[in-house]
């Protein structure tokens, strides 16, 4: 079964303990890091790596591999689905 962007948003909110923001308030293509999006930082990035392993069994050993995936919710969902189909 394909992982939706809503699934990813809910996992991000839960794993990063983000308060007062719902999945519906996060745009699929909004940047995860820096201004204009969720404003996540480098520690959040590590937490997202743990979240991917915990929830989807995806292990990212090289952060360079993960960098394009962590652009937005949409890219992260696409990355998860591509990894799960292998």
């Amino acid at each position, binding site marked *: 079964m394909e992982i939706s962007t809503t699934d990813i948003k809910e996992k991000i909110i839960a794993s*990063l*303990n*983000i*308060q*007062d*923001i719902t999945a519906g308030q996060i745009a699929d293509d909004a940047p995860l890091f820096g201004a204009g999006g969720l404003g996540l930082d480098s*520690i*959040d990035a*590590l*937490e997202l*790596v*743990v*979240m*991917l*392993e*915990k929830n989807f*069994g995806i292990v990212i050993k090289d952060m360079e591999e993960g960098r394009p995936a962590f652009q937005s919710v949409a890219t992260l969902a696409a990355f998860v689905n591509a990894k799960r189909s292998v």
Partner: protein
Amino acid sequence: MDKIVIAATSQVAEADLKLARLGSRFGRLDLMSQLALLAVEKLGVNFDSLPRERIAICLAARAGSLATDAEFWKGRDAAGGPSPTLFAYTLPSAAIGEIAIRHRLTGPNLCFVGDSRDVLAEAADLLRRGEADACVCVYCEVVSSAAAGMIQSTPTSNVSALFLQRDGAGQILPEEFDSDMESFCAKFRA
């Protein structure tokens, strides 16, 4: 000798966090940092009244970061390992950083693992030496069930805060005192 006054006091417990709204990233903080931030917020101090670089922060934690250390250790067997975010809070001084960031305070800071009297005495000395004009004092008694077992203590989660100022308005801090911060907070509570 300069007169040191207690300009504001506050006390919070874990139950107070239910109604706390301190931004979307408040949930990422460990319990001690959350309580410390809330206690400082409840002081109701207008930090704009003084230059930010002249406001110090002194914090003591009775059990250091043991509660967070134990939680981090517990996660070592989980898939993906323990939480990287939690790792950032396995130092009691992390709470000082959170206070400094939120209120943009850039004065000196001190962190103790110990008694709240250490905080008051050191903060008063800091002000008397002229290193700062005011000091946010925080005493954290945060001992989780897991941590309590390690130090033969009872679980607790209370944080007291005081705002000390040189020559400001408020109750005068005695030059010699044997009370702890909780007693001062109780005595001077508005």
